[in-house]
């Protein structure tokens, strides 16, 4: 299945792009996507412990399942206001 990965703020700058189409085996979970992204973007390494992850705009843990066309967002610590 194919998902869209969205990078924001520091994650966007370190990945060098705002988004990515990612192909994953059916049944993949968020943790699997995370591992695939980490392999492809080693520059994200120091950031991972600080990132929250959202699927389709809802915060999730690594156990959460993914579905085709899911939007997985990498969200650094927030600083709005």
């Amino acid at each position, binding site marked *: 299945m194919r998902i869209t990965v969205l990078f924001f703020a520091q994650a966007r700058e370190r990945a060098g792009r705002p988004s990515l189409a990612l192909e994953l085996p059916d049944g993949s979970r968020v943790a699997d996507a995370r591992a695939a992204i980490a392999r492809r973007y080693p520059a994200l390494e120091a950031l991972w412990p600080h990132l929250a992850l959202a699927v389709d705009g809802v915060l999730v843990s690594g156990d959460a399942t993914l579905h085709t066309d899911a939007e997985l967002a990498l969200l650094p610590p*927030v600083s*709005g206001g």
Partner: protein
Amino acid sequence: MAELVRRPIDAAALAREAARPDCGAIALFLGTSRDHHQGRRVTGLAYEAYEPMALRALEGIERRTPERFEVATCRIVHRLGDVPLAEASVAVVVAAAHRGPAFDACRWAMDELKRAVPIWKKEFFAEGGEAWVEGRPLA
């Protein structure tokens, strides 16, 4: 309805729209960009958001504020993109019958906004360079 805008925030319009004949108190908070942060001179700010998620989060705050406090309405506008010094990056407006709850609610909404909305602020420094402001993990 919460808004994310890429132009100056019209505080007057927000105050005007918040005024209701059944409310005696309007508390308005404006977050403006500051020329210093942790000892460094700042020349400008830029904001980025995960827009659909941020909008939903802001709308959630607008909805929950009158549930938690004795206030009639809460309205939030956040600016994105470049924000010149001394211009507002965010406005929170609360209308209520009485001023105590108006102040409490406005403050709570601002705290929630800083805690739970996927928006990021970058600072540009006078000495050169730029940095994302150290934020809080979303949870």
